[in-house]
Structures are given as C-alpha cells and as structure tokens.
C-alpha cells in the first residue's frame, strides 16, 4: 500500500508540474507568424461565402493571444465591410464578441467600429449578434461609464426593431449595462437621461412572448446588479402572471418574488374591495395561485419560491394547508381533522362505518370560494402534483417555512407524514429529512407516529436509515408511543438485521430523550415479575440489546430506574458498558461499586489538563536541539508514547496527538539513521548496514505522505514542515545510495533530481521560507549555487554535514485537525463463510463503510480488492454511492464486482478449478490523496 501510495502521489506531483511547462512552450509560439496575417490570407482566398465561413469556423477553434487580438479584429472588420452574405457577417460578429472576451485585451478600441457597423446593418440576425458582441464588450469594461451610456443608447435605439431577436438582445444589454443610478446625467446631444427601468418595463407588454421574457429577465438582472426596482413594477408583473406563455409566467413569478422581498411591508389594495394587505402577503397569495398553473415548469418555480417567503404573515401561511372540503354542498372534515378528533376523543381505530366521513353542516353557497384568490390549499395542491419535481419543491418549501414558524410546523406535520407514502423514493426521502429538520418544533401524536413507523418496513435502506435518524430527534408524547416505536424498531430489526447499528443508535437517543416515559415500561420490557425470577434472556440477541440500550440511556437521567433491574440486568449492563461503550452510558448504580470506575465521570469532563499536557510534551521537544543524540532519542520516544496514549484516551485530541506523534517519529527515525555506524566506515565495506538507514528514509517518506493526505484541516504552515521533512528524507536516501553504489552514473541522475526537488520546494513555499530559519533547506538554499556546479560526490558530502547540523523544526499545531479514517462495516472481517465464485463470472460484493474526515471522497476514495493470488484491483465507486449523513462524515455504500480468471498459480491448475475461494477480510480501504 505504501508503495502504491507513493506512486500515486508522484503521479500527482508530475501532473502539477506539467501545466507550467506548457505555458512556457506557448510563449515560444508567439514568435511565429501572426494569426491575423494567416487569417487575412485565408479570407482572401475564399471564393464563396461558404468557404469563408469554413475558414472562420476553423479559426474560431484555436485560441488567440491577447497581443494579436487587435490585428485579427482589424482584419475581421475589413472583411465584414466587404462581405455580402449575412451568415458570414454573423460569424464575424460572433467572433468579434469572442475575441473581445480574451483576457488581457481591452476591447474599447473595437467598440466604435462595432457601433458603426451596427448602424448600417440590415439583417436582423446579424444585428442581434452585433448587440451580443456589444454586450460582451460592455461587460468587459464595467468601470467605463461613458461607454456604458453609449451602449445603452444604442440598445434603446434598436428596441423598436421588428425582429424579436434584436429586441431580446437590446433588453439583455439594458439589463446588464443600464446605469444603476437614477441621476439625471445629460448626454452631449441634450437627450434626457434614460430611466432604464421604465424602458424595460414598457416591453412587458410586447407582442412577442420571447421579448416579454427577455424584458423580465433584464429587470431581474438589474436587481441582481443592485438596482432597487420600483414598486410600480409589481402591478405590471402581476398582469404577466396570466400570460399565455409559460416562460413569461415563470419569469414573472420570479419578479414578483423579488419585489415582495424588496417591499414586504408596503400596502396594496385588494381589487374589487376596499381592503388592503401587505405586499408580501399579496405576492404570497399570487405565487400560491401559480402552484396550480398549467405548466409544471411554472409550478416548480412557484413552489420553490414559496419556501423563501418567510415574512409572510402566519394567517396566510396556514391557509396554504387549508382546503375546505365539502360533499354535496355540505361541509366535510378532512381525514386529518377526523384523525385528530378521534385521537382526542379517545376512540381510536374506526372507519368501520360507511359514511363515517359523512358531511355534517350545510355550507352557505355564497361563502364558498372555489378559486381562492389567496393562498388556500397551495401546498395541498403542490404535494399532490403529478410531477415529482413539483412535489419535491413543495416539500422543500414546507421545510423552510416550517423552520421559521413553529405553529406552521405543527400544522404541516400531517401533510409531511402523508408524503412518506409517495410513490417516488426521492420524495419520500426528502420528506423524512424535512421532518427531521423541523422535529425540534413538533411533538408527534400517536396516530402520526403510527404512520411514521409504518415506513420502517420500507425495503430501501436509505429510507429506513433516514427514519431512524428522524426518530433520534423526535419528541413522543406518550409512553404508548415509546412502546410502539420500540416494537416497530424491533420488528424492523428482525426483518432487516443489517440495520442493527442504526437501530441501536436510534434507541439510545430515544431513551435519553424520554426517560420519564420509559420508566413505567421497564418491568414490561425486561419482563420482570414481582415474585418470580424470570429466565435470563440471551445476551447476544440484538433485540434484547436494543431494549437494554433504550433502558440504560433512559436510566442515565432517571435515578429510580435501576431499582427495577434484576440481577442479570446489572451483569448485562457491565458487559454492554464494555463492549458497546458508545451506546451505553455510565450509570450510577445504587449499592454497587461503579462498574466502570476507570472511566468514571470525574475524569472525562476536564479537558484542559490534557490539552495542557499535550502542549507541555510538545514544548519539551523544543529542547531537543540541545541534547546529545542519545538523550534526544529517548525524549522523542517518551513523547511519542505519551502522545499516543493521550490520543487513545481523548478522542477530541486524537487528531492532534497522532499528527504530532507521527512528525516526531519521523524526526526520531532521522536521528536514528544519522546515528548509524556506517557513516564512519568506508563505504564499500558496509553495504548491508545501510539497510536501516534506507529503510528509515523510506518510512519517513511514507509517514510524511500520510501526514499530508490523511488528515483533514492541515494548513499551509504544516505542509511546509512536512515537505521539509520529506526533503530531508530524500537527502538521506541520496546519501545512502551514494555510499552504497559504485559508479557515478546513477548518482548523477539522482543528484540532479534532488536538486530539482529543492528547486520546486523553493518555488512552492517561497512565502514560507522566512519561517524556516536555520533549517536544512535554509542552509541548502544558501549553498545552492555551489551545489549546482559541484560533482555528485561533493554534493553528497555537503548534504551529509548539513543534515547533521540542521535544526529541528517545530511543528505548529493546526486549529482543527482530524485524522481521516475509514471503517468497513460490511464485509465484516474474519467472516466464516468465504465468498465463492466461479472463475470468469462476476460476483457482487456489498461494501458498506463509514469515512470520517475525508475531504472530497468522491474523487479520493477507492476500494481495493486483493485476491488470494496477490492480484490487486482498484475500484472507483460511483459518486452517487457516497452519502453525507453529517459534517465530516461520509458513508460509502456500494457494490464491488469481483471476477477472476482461472487460478493460474495452482499446481496443476486447469479449467477444472472452477470454485474459487476468497476471504472477505482482505478488502482494504486505502486512502488515496490528491492535490
């Protein structure tokens, strides 16, 4: 693995280097004959417009350098004037736009020309393209007010064009460049200053829907650029909501949303009545109405935007979940209301009567509004929509609104629970996650809990695990609820034994959240009897463990509970406290010694001493320089041991402790290597002795790579030190090789490579060099000119002395450092059943692993499969296989396909050897790093 790791990192190294070389070669190309000339020749050669177009197309594929852009532009313009064919002119215009985007080229010089040709152009398509070019120029020069003004004028002039394309582009230009200040600056010609908003607003009623859309988009663009839109736009936008075209409506919804965020509190009148309401409420009602639009694109848009309208008043918000039911003009209660009523009246299961939902009161026909102007039932519609995109958007919006309003959260619960039965898994998952997010605000009723728990039988693992997490943070109101949850979870456990860990964890939280509710259940759960001793349950039964986890966690905050335990429960507690310490908390048991006094609470909460200890031990290492080699070695060894122990004890400090320990170990190895006798003896005699030194060098390299890539939160400061250490290891390697190999030829290459590395080091970390006072590299760089010219033998000599003299660099501790780690949950190691598969065929192996603190796992994590014959196979899991259950945590659930050709290594192996054995335990998780 180490070798592999190294190889990969080398690969990365070379990859990083390459682009620089490429840039260098590019620069050389500049001296070649200029592009413009070549283009000119090409275009002159062209006999027909089609030919010219071909040349231009070819030309467009190659990049043009900033220096030659100007020339090319001139040539293009020249041809533009001559050209009769609109398609060629169009291409030239688009090329102009492309070229003006070239970095390092200032396009103001071509603007005049572009505006000029714009005035004489007849073809609408070319006009549109030219305006696009102007837009590119304008966006390139955001500071130049005069140019922007001029461009806006040009755009205004062409707004009256008959072609929608031209008008589109004009509006786009206005949106992107229109001046933000409303100040009345006058043009030279005495033209009144243009109010961009008004101009754009006039095109809201254009006859072409594309232009209308462009106008709204331009308005939104203005808003994005920081212009405060007028409130008058609101009315215009509202009219556009009933447009015939979906793209117009979709854009209008956005615009309304923007305005409602700008002027939430201003008052608008309700048409056909004297009442007035807040603008944000009115907008909310209008957007709600769009949730039942004919086009699903608009519906998605509307549903999404609803979520971010948090200022809306609660009265309107709650209407979204309200849909007045009636049957034959008589008011009917919704199923939700009925469920609630049944629950509160105490009578539960029902529905046995026909007409249980029979309508009650008569409805006043005049009062029923079938199309409520307001928000009525928007979410009811959204959640029932035909397209799952709309449903997901609605669920997301519900989530956001519920997070900001607890009363709304309570109300939307029923609807979210209903979504657990959606036909599309994505929607179900989304609604479970939503529920989890708002679970602080809610308490589940028993009947709701019942529905939620029914989903535990889902065959999708994601759904079940999401639900477990939801249960972790749910509030349950009654002890029956807890019992119900436990029973369902146990049912789940028997049906899907793989969920064991997740269920235990879930019960842990459930217990610690509801100690008082668990208390009355304890005798029943433990099946104790007041008079008789009951049989001792099987300790290895996952279901029994699950029950115990629930009880022990509840007992933590409920001191009366342990009194109800029977003898074997205490024994089991001791066992579980040891074996599943992350699930079972320490309990204070009456009349007994604390079973786990070693980890009694008195030690744990004090964090400072250990932090101090860490600091002290690291400071001790400072004095390393002044000690004799023997003493230094001992000090390092002690410190490493201390750190390792500390890391084991204190999980929060594990990352830091490990990190520093690794660094110190490298130093220790280096010192040891330098203490070797071989340095004092003539080289040829001690070929074998050098093994230790070269092994040390190798190990240091390996450790430094681990330090660099296996920890998250490593900062640049540390990277420098790590690289410095690696450089030392490389020097050591060079010296050892020099001493053990005869002949200078290989040495030349190595020397050169080493010097190159030093050069890289210097280039990469030039900013950090001042911190490296007195270090190996510091000295090395001083002597660099000498090293460059001297012979390998000499170099080696210099290096050797420098290595010995160089100071030990102190490793500054990063703020947050965590060791990346991976645990393979499945396949379990040391499985008794080896995996069998037929040669040539494929077998799928489920891999389930948790990754902690791995950055960008999609690209860095691979699965390695080692076959018994030593073959290794790297498998890249799909990005979709990674789930992100929490910060810094990733879950990899994937399938690895194993296949192997016939066993070749077997004595007398032939095709007859059909069955292959493969131990499951050897799929490892190497962590691969990349830059």
């Amino acid at each position, binding site marked *: 693995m180490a070798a592999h790791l190294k190889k990969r990192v080398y690969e990365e190294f070379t990859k990083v280097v390459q682009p620089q070389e490429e840039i260098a070669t590019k620069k050389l190309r500049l001296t070649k004959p200029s592009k413009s000339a070549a283009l000119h020749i090409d275009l002159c050669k062209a006999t027909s417009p089609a030919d010219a177009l071909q040349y231009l197309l070819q030309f467009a594929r190659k990049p043009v350098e900033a220096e030659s852009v100007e020339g090319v532009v001139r040539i293009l313009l020249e041809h533009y004037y001559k050209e009769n064919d609109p398609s060629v002119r169009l291409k030239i215009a688009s090329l102009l736009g492309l070229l003006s985007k070239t970095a390092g080229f200032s396009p103001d010089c071509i603007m005049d020309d572009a505006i000029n040709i714009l005035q004489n152009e007849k073809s609408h398509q070319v006009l549109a393209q030219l305006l696009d070019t102007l837009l590119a120029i304008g966006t390139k020069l955001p500071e130049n007010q005069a140019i922007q003004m001029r461009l806006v004028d040009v755009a205004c002039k062409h707004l009256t064009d008959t072609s929608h394309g031209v008008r589109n582009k004009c509006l786009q230009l206005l949106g992107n460049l229109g001046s933000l200040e409303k100040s009345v600056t006058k043009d030279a010609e005495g033209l009144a200053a243009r109010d961009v908003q008004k101009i754009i607003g006039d095109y809201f009623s254009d006859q072409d829907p594309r232009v209308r859309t462009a106008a709204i988009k331009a308005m939104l663009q203005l808003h994005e650029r920081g212009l405060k839109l007028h409130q008058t736009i609101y009315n215009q936008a509202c009219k556009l909501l009933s447009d015939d075209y979906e793209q117009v409506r979709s854009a209008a919804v956005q615009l309304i949303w923007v305005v409602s965020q700008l002027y939430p509190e201003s008052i608008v009148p309700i048409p056909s009545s004297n009442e007035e309401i807040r603008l944000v409420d009115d907008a909310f009602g209008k957007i709600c109405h769009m949730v039942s639009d*004919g086009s699903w694109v608009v519906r998605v848009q509307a549903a999404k935007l609803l979520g971010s309208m948090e200022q809306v008043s609660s009265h309107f918000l709650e209407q979204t979940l309200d849909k007045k039911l009636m049957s034959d003009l008589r008011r009917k209660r919704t199923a939700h209301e009925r469920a609630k009523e049944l629950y509160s009246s105490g009578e539960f299961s029902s529905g046995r009567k026909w007409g249980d939902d029979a309508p009650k009161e008569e409805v006043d026909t005049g009062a029923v509004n079938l199309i409520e102007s307001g928000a009525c039932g928007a979410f009811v519609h959204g959640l029932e929509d035909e397209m799952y995109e709309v449903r997901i958007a609605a669920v997301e919006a519900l989530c956001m609104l519920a997070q900001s309003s607890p009363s709304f959260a309570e109300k939307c619960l029923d609807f979210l629970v209903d979504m657990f*039965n959606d036909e599309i898994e994505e929607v179900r998952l989304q609604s479970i996650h939503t529920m989890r997010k708002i679970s602080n605000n809610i308490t589940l009723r028993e009947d709701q809990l019942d529905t939620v728990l029914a989903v535990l039988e889902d065959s999708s693992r994601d759904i079940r695990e999401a639900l477990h997490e939801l249960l972790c943070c749910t509030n349950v109101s009654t002890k029956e609820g807890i019992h119900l949850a436990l029973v369902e979870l146990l049912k789940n456990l028997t049906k899907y034994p793989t969920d064991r860990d997740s269920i235990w964890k879930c019960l842990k939280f459930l217990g610690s959240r509801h100690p008082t509710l668990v208390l009355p259940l304890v005798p029943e759960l433990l099946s104790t009897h007041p008079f008789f001793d009951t049989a001792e349950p099987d300790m290895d039964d996952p279901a029994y463990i699950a029950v115990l986890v629930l009880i022990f966690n509840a007992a933590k905050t409920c001191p009366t509970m342990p009194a109800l335990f029977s003898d074997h429960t205490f024994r089991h507690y001791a066992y579980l406290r040891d074996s599943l310490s992350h699930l079972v908390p320490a309990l204070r048991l009456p009349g007994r010694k604390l079973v786990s006094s070693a980890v009694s609470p008195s030690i744990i909460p004090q964090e400072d001493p250990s932090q101090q200890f860490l600091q002290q031990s690291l400071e001790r290492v400072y004095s390393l320089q002044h000690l004799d080699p023997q003493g230094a070695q001992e000090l390092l060894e002690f410190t490493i041991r201390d750190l390792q122990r500390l890391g084991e004890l204190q999980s929060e400090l594990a990352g830091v402790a490990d990190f520093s320990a690794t660094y110190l170990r490298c130093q220790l190895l280096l010192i040891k290597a330098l203490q070797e006798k071989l340095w004092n003896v003539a080289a040829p005699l001690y070929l074998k002795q050098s093994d230790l030194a070269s092994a040390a060098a190798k190990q240091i390299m390996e450790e430094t790579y681990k330090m660099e890539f296996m920890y998250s939160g490593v900062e640049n400061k540390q990277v420098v030190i790590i690289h410095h250490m690696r450089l030392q290891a490389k020097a050591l390697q060079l010296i050892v090789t020099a001493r053990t190999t005869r002949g200078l030829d290989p040495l030349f290459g190595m020397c050169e490579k080493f010097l190159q590395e030093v050069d890289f080091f210097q280039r990469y970390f030039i900013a950090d060099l001042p911190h490296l006072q007195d270090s190996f590299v510091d000295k090395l760089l001083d002597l660099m000119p000498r090293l460059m010219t001297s012979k390998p033998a000499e170099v080696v000599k210099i290096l050797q002395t420098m290595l010995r003299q160089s100071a030990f660099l102190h490793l500054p501790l990063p703020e947050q450092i965590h060791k990346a780690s991976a645990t393979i949950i499945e396949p379990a190691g040391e499985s008794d059943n080896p995996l069998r598969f037929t040669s040539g065929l494929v077998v799928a192996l489920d891999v389930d692993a948790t990754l902690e603190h791995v950055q960008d796992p999609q690209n860095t994590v691979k699965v390695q499969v080692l076959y018994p014959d030593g073959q290794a196979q790297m498998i890249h899991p799909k990005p979709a296989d990674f789930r992100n259950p929490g910060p810094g945590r990733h879950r990899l659930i994937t399938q690895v396909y194993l296949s192997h050709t016939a066993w070749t290594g077997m004595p007398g192996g032939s095709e007859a050897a059909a069955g292959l054995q493969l131990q499951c335990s050897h799929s490892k998780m190497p962590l691969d790093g990349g830059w």
Partner: protein
Amino acid sequence: MPEIRVTPLGAGQDVGRSCILVSIAGKNVMLDCGMHMGFNDDRRFPDFSYITQNGRLTDFLDCVIISHFHLDHCGALPYFSEMVGYDGPIYMTHPTQAICPILLEDYRKIAVDKKGEANFFTSQMIKDCMKKVVAVHLHQTVQVDDELEIKAYYAGHVLGAAMFQIKVGSESVVYTGDYNMTPDRHLGAAWIDKCRPNLLITESTYATTIRDSKRCRERDFLKKVHETVERGGKVLIPVFALGRAQELCILLETFWERMNLKVPIYFSTGLTEKANHYYKLFIPWTNQKIRKTFVQRNMFEFKHIKAFDRAFADNPGPMVVFATPGMLHAGQSLQIFRKWAGNEKNMVIMPGYCVQGTVGHKILSGQRKLEMEGRQVLEVKMQVEYMSFSAHADAKGIMQLVGQAEPESVLLVHGEAKKMEFLKQKIEQELRLLPEAKKPRLLHGTLIMKDSNFRLVSSEQALKELGLAEHQLRFTCRVHLHDTRKEQETALRVYSHLKSVLKDHCVQHLPDGSVTVESVLLQAAAPSEDPGTKVLLVSWTYQDEELGSFLTSLLKKGLPQAPS
C-alpha cells in the same frame, strides 16, 4: 358570427347515456355515444330519431367523437352505427380503440346471453363498427374535412380518456368527456392549453364536492389491508375490471414491494387479464412515475399479483383478492364473499359506489345478516370498509380546468341539475369569463387588395409599393401668451417650461429660435399690433395628436412666472 348549437341527446343533466350533438358553422359533430345503466328498454340508448327524422345519420353528421371507453360514453356505438346506420368516421384515441370492443362484447354477452334480450347488436356488428374508427394521438390535429378539425388533450380519468377540441374556422368548442385533475397511481392529471374556445362543455359529476387529498385515502387503504393481512386475515376487494382495479393493483404492488411483503395477491382472471395487457402497451398514457420507470420495469407487469383460481379461496393463511364485479351482486366476488364472511379476521373493502339493492350496498349500510337465495341467512362477521377512489374532477378541479382553457362560455353536462346551478354561480362569480379572452388590439397598417388577394402591410411599405408619397396631416394652432419680452426669450421660456414638464419626451431648442417636442413644432412670433402679447404657433402631425393637444392646453394655461 356563426352560431354554435348544442343538443344533448343524453347526459344533459344526468349521468349516463352521454351523447351531445354540436353544430358549429354548419358542421355537425356527435360527442360520445353512450348507454344508460339504469334502463333496460329503449331509453338505454340515446334517441337518434331526433336526427333521423330529417334524413340519414351519415348525411347529417360530419363525425363522431368518443372520449373514453366507459360504456356510458361508448355503449350505444354499435347500435348507432350498425343498426341505425352511420358510415362516417368515428374518432377515438388508441387505447380507447383497443379496449372499447372488449367492453362492448362483455356488455353484449350480459345483455344477450344472461338476460336473453333479442334485437341486440351482435359481435359482428361490434367488429364492423370498430372498422369505422379512426384513432388519434394526443395533441394531434386531425382535419376531418376542409374546415372541421379536431384535437385531443389528455384527460386522466381512465386509460386513453381524452378531451377534444373541435374547431371550424375561428369557432371552437372543447368537450371534456370525463376527466380528473388530480393524478393517481397510474394516470396523470388532465391538461389543456389556453385555447380560448368559444364554448367549453365540461362534465360536472362532482359539482358540489371538494375532495380530501388522495394520499389520506391511499394511506388508509394500505394500512387497513396491511393490518388485516398481518393478523392473518383475508382481504376481498370487489372491483370492476377496468380503471380503479389497475390503480389499486399498482398501489398494492408498490406497497408490497416497498414493505417486502410475501402475502399473495390474486386478481380474478378473464376480462381483467386482457385489459392489463393493454395497460402494459399504452405506457405513454400513464403517469410520470410509470413512464419514467417502464424501461427498467413495466409497472403493470405485476410481481406480486397472480391470477386467481377458484380453489385458492379455501387456502389457509392471509391473502388479498381482487374480484369482479364491484358491487358484490353476482359472480366471483360474491362467491368469495360468502366463503369469507363468517370470519371476523377477514375484511372486504368496497372501493366504489354501490347501487341500491346489491349486496354491496346492504353491507355498507350496516346490515349484518343477509338473506341469500334459497332462504339461507348469511351472517357477516368480517369487517366492511368503504373507500372512495373516484376519478372525476371535483369542483375545484373543474374551476381549474375552466381557468386553464379560458373559454368564452361554459356548458355543464353530465351531472345533476341542482348541483350544476351551484357551480354555474361560482363560475360566473369567480372567473368573470367573456370578452377579455379575445381582446381587441390596435394595429396600424394598410390593407392592400390586389388581384383578389388581401395583404396587411405596414403603411411605409404600402406607400413604397404603390409608389405614393406620404401625406402629412398637421394641425396648427395659435396660443396667445402675455409676455413682454422678445420672441427669443419667450421661446426660451417655453423651452425650459416644457423641458421641466415633459421629462419623458425629447424637447429641443433649435438654433432658429423654435422649440420642438418630438414632432410638435412651436414658434414664437410677435404680432405687430400688441407688443404685450406673443403668439405661439403650435403645429403637430396627426400621429402626435395626443401630445399636441396636451401641449396646447398646457400652454393656454400660461407660462409660470419666470424667475427674475
């Protein structure tokens, strides 16, 4: 404006025997041709003599359109085409064309074989009738003849149900048939574009009902089935072969799949199997979920649902059985019901409406002791549940569709008169239909008539083409101002005044002393007789009439006092 005449031959203000005659601009179209379940005499079919008294059907009707395969919309078709005699085209969608003959044949069998009716249409007639059918695709515009065109829209309700737009010239009518605005497990929601027809003929079965969300019902249904099965009970679901049966099958199938259940589900054989076959074929007509996943697996290829055999009813252990017919009045469902009724662990779920007099209706109304034939008394101990899975649009849905189509007027059919009255009020109140639909737009242009061709072109182009010079019509007006200063100064004052008032217009002061506002020209002149007053000549073109008259009225009010 040519008039549109609508004559309902059936289902005008009731449900069943849908048949509506529409005449638009001389074209006659018959919409649906259904039978009535409630009658066994002549009244079961629409009265075609209304048409035939004036001649043959084929001569009168330009085409017949069938919206979907339910018998109350297509049941009279063979009678109409073969026995009364019609040879013109009959339009329906592909799924309707496929399933319709199966149902007609089934209907015929029951009427002739079971009830022994004579003078009923024969199998051959059904076949002949189906030969006259022209199948259409969704959103396909079919030219029936030069002037008449029809177009189908998706309607939900059942597989292949469609709404039809009938268009003659600029007049159009939309007929909805039956439709559903809320999607279910196998079909999507009805959709129509903003076609702004002159008339929208819509069903109104649930004109006075607003329904609860479908999810609650589904959840209840699944929960009840699941609980019963877990207890070890048997569940009987009486259904009709097509429509709801498939929806419930999908519902249970996906639930079984999700929950990993192993309890067997059976479906009674026969008609249903055939129908399921068509459901598998017409995937584009189903909902989003089925359409998206059918490449991996066709949802109608049920994994957990197997064909039922009579012997299975006596098997021990839990099971779920779908059996026909849906009202428990005869056949397999009744047989199974009699076997299972005695056990309180079992359950029967009625997913739809039951007609009075059927066993289904009796048990739903709470009867626990049933008298069967032969004086037997059957005690019903099993649980009885009712759950409505209806696929018609409710009042909100109807309003939504009306809102989508934006018709000039709406005609309600296929519902009860009283309920329609309510919905009518609501539509009038809330949608405020009419003229806005086709709003007039102002257009400047010239109509050129040349070689009996009409062309509408811009005026400039017309002038150019005809080689005419443009005439300008200018209005001029004199405004007297009291101003003792010189003309130049007066002009300057006018300029600054206008500049401050007309911010949106381009006001310019020309070097010759005159002021222009767009095309309006203002000149100050001093009349010789009175030095105290100045005459302001205002002149504007016809196009700028509005601005010109505004300016004169503005100037007549006088200039503001000049700052001294």
